[in-house]
């Protein structure tokens, strides 16, 4: 097997003077060469094939390489991401419950009056739900856009004290703009449905005569 290097431009130190590799074995400890596989080539098969024909060279698939070199950081960031998501969902539910309680405390007389004139509990729950979901939905929409625009800067700022001078967040559009907001909206919806059930315990006379 013949490995042909036709262009090497690996900038190790951001120094243009070292933009070309010096193949003097006395001066370097290791050369790292990245191979891009053609579309459809199986990574494991190709790795085994290269290991077979290049026994003196360490051939490592990039995912394994990343896991070996940055595994700790990746694990930590994955935990941070999961914790951030859990906290975001809990906060969404908490804010929704607080908001629901606020609306119901402020409008207890109106709710009782609506029941008195013939609104069913379901009618009132739907009304409350729509209002809350519109407001919360707007909040989630604005939050999503801000997180995906200003989020990177804020995250970098937070991690700068730990030595990471710059963090680049790779935003997955489907996850960032659809799946995460949808999960958040689902949590809000479930909270609203559960929270608004208390309407049935509203006593018309007590609320109106009070």
């Amino acid at each position, binding site marked *: 097997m013949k490995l042909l290097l036709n262009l090497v431009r690996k900038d190790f130190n951001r120094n243009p003077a070292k933009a070309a590799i010096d193949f003097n074995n006395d001066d370097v400890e290791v050369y790292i060469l990245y191979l891009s596989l053609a579309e459809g080539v199986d990574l494991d098969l190709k790795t085994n094939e290269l290991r077979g024909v290049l026994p003196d060279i360490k051939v490592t698939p990039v995912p394994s390489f990343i896991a070996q070199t940055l595994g700790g950081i990746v694990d930590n960031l994955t935990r941070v991401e999961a914790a951030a998501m859990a906290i975001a969902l809990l906060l969404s539910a908490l804010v929704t419950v607080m908001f629901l309680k606020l609306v119901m405390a402020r409008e207890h007389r109106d709710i009782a009056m609506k029941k008195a*004139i*013939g609104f069913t509990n379901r009618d009132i729950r739907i009304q409350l739900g729509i209002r809350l979901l519109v407001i919360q939905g707007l909040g989630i929409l604005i939050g999503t856009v801000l997180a995906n625009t200003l989020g990177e800067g804020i995250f970098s700022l937070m991690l700068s004290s730990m030595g990471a001078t710059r963090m680049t967040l790779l935003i997955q559009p489907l996850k960032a703009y659809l799946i995460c907001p949808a999960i958040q909206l689902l949590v809000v919806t479930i909270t609203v449905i559960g929270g608004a059930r208390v309407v049935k315990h509203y006593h018309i006379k007590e609320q109106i005569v009070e």
Partner: protein
Amino acid sequence: MIKVEQISKSVKGNSPVANVAIETSILKEISFEIDRGDFVAVMGPSGSGKSTLLYSVSGMDQITAGRIVFDGVNLTEMNEESLAELRLNKMGFVFQNAQMLKNLSLFDNLILPGLVAKKEKPQVIRNRAQDLMKRMDIDGLGGRDIREVSGGQLQRASICRAMINNPEVLFLDEPTGALNSAATDQVLNILAALNDEGMTIMTVTHDPRVAVRAKKVIYLRDGEIAGEKELSTGPNREQELDDWLKCV
């Protein structure tokens, strides 16, 4: 039309003297009937159970014993959703302090139960609201915020709202309690006219001027009926009521 059979209501609470649970009776085995086209006034001192009786008969408050039969249907066996439907379609309510939604105009408040009932086209409901407002002498106020009208106008608007679905019975809780003399007379004239047209009315009141317009007066004391009086149709109704109230 409405049969109230041996209804009682009690609430549990803590004694203010000793820290023990006590049960207080608010209504005690009350029975009476309201016929179609009746005008019944419930009187009595504060705390006698008048409002509780009104809210119970209209299905807005739960009783602990007895039966309330409305048009052959036992209200005490109905679930909350069925009671709401009954209130929407067959009952109208007027509260002491006209309860309106602050974020809606006066007109929108009036048509709200009609739109919720979905029995008729919105235009039909709007037309009826306009007719009712004209009749109550508050036409032209529809676009106003509810804070921009007087108590009397608001109370008349409440009657319009109560009438919007052509109910079979009108329940009123101290409808003139917060009104001045002139506004009281206006509201009473409207109620008398509605009753003359066949509307069944049950009202709670402290005011003999309201009670004298009724056909039947029930006097409550300590949760029990202390007396019941059918008023004659003659010119001496006021004196008749006054004499009865002195001895009841």
